[in-house]
């Protein structure tokens, strides 16, 4: 499992990996919004966390199809499916999700403070956004694994994955933004949405790989 983890992280960081594209997309969303909203700094500071969360969600959805696509193209996915009696397929999917998150989700979290400065957010808001993204984005990857596994045999499944996955990612977005606002606005709850966000991540960390492993097993043709 460690070997698979390291291999996937290395592959993801190579030039052909999707890590950079996700970051650029995130940057684009955060940079385009002020043009649309107008350069009112107070307004931007207020809705900044929501913009960053939306951007991070869309950027995470963008790279999901790569989760199994490359392995399918070079045949290693078939080997994993054949080996499922020695190494559980759900465990393989879980490992791949972790590697995928490290190469696509974590960079988004890391550049969030920079984008927060561009959006005139103060320290507490930036810290809260980073924390909620850190807890919440793995959930999107785990949910996305189901969509990616279902669409793996489709020739142009990329956009379909995003469409199919979006309804399941909405609770993550809701609680992520709610917790971020709770840290900034007085009187708004912070701890409860944060715990619910963590619960969502843990829940999908179990359900996602199980369902995705089952779907992969049946996708073999």
């Amino acid at each position: 499992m460690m070997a698979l983890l390291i291999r996937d992280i290395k592959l993801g960081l190579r030039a052909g990996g999707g890590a950079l594209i996700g970051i650029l997309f995130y940057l684009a969303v955060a940079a385009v919004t002020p043009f649309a909203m107008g350069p009112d700094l107070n307004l931007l500071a207020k809705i900044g966390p929501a913009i960053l969360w939306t951007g991070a969600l869309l950027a995470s959805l963008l790279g999901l199809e790569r989760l199994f696509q490359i392995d399918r193209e070079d045949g290693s996915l078939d080997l994993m499916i054949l080996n499922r009696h020695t190494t559980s397929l759900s465990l393989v999917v879980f490992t791949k999700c972790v590697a995928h998150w490290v190469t696509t989700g974590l960079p988004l979290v890391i550049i969030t403070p920079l984008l927060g400065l561009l959006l005139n957010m103060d320290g507490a808001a930036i810290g809260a956004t980073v924390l909620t993204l850190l807890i919440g984005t793995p959930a999107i990857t785990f949910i996305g694994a189901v969509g990616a596994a279902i669409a793996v045999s489709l020739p142009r499944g990329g956009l379909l994955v995003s469409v199919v996955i979006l309804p399941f990612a909405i609770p993550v977005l809701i609680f992520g933004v709610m917790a971020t606002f709770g840290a900034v606005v007085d009187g708004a709850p912070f701890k409860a949405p944060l715990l619910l966000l963590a619960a969502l991540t843990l829940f999908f960390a179990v359900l996602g790989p199980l369902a995705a492993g089952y779907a992969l097993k049946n996708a073999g043709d």
Partner: protein
Amino acid sequence: MSKKDIKKVGMLAALANPTRFMTLSGTLLPWLSLLAALFVAIGLYLGWQAPEDYQQGITVRIMYIHVPAAWFAMFSYTVMALSALGVLVWRHPLADVSIRAAAPIGAAFTLLCLVTGSLWGRPMWGTYWVWDARLTSVFVLLLMYLGIMALQRAMEDPARSARPVAILVLVGYINIPIIKFSVDFWNTLHQPASVIRLDGPTIHASMLWPLLVVAIGFTFLFLAMHMMAMRNEIRRRRAASLRKAGARGKSSAPTTAVLEG
């Protein structure tokens, strides 16, 4: 509601033969359609005769469509989830047909629920739409129906799309309890349940009866439409397999059409 499910499990093996299903549904369908039309007509008439609400005035009559539509938006998804179990556990040949047939019907009920709710919300809440917990979760349900339909249409071969779609349907089932209890978890604009609750309905009998009659009518309506859509889907698959056989040449064409998937 549960009668169909019991029937489904009990006659599971018998209905595995599509031809038998076609014969049975062919005889049932006119009766179901008739009952649906009858009950919906009576229920709506009774709803029109029922007293107006002292606060809502005449707009309360929207409820007689809105509430059953919301119930059947969730019921359709439940039927799909049970059929998904049928695909994955029993590999029932008609279960996938049932999912495919129920998805557009469920989407239509969900849309009906959202539209009637908006029309009611405009005079009562002063707005067509709020991002309230229940409204949002029903909206998410609509997105899920559309996503499932998109996935079904993305794969050409129904035999291959059956299991991925079934997995997606089952994973999506977690949204149904969220919708049902959203008005209890988050105390927002949408009023809490008033018909199905542990301590009995809080709605007056004069309004409850028309509502229940419409709900019975919607049950028959759902069964009739579902059965009709399943028959269409079976015919569509037969036509597709006949076309394929025809393309392969006359010698390999089967004497009787068989259902694929």
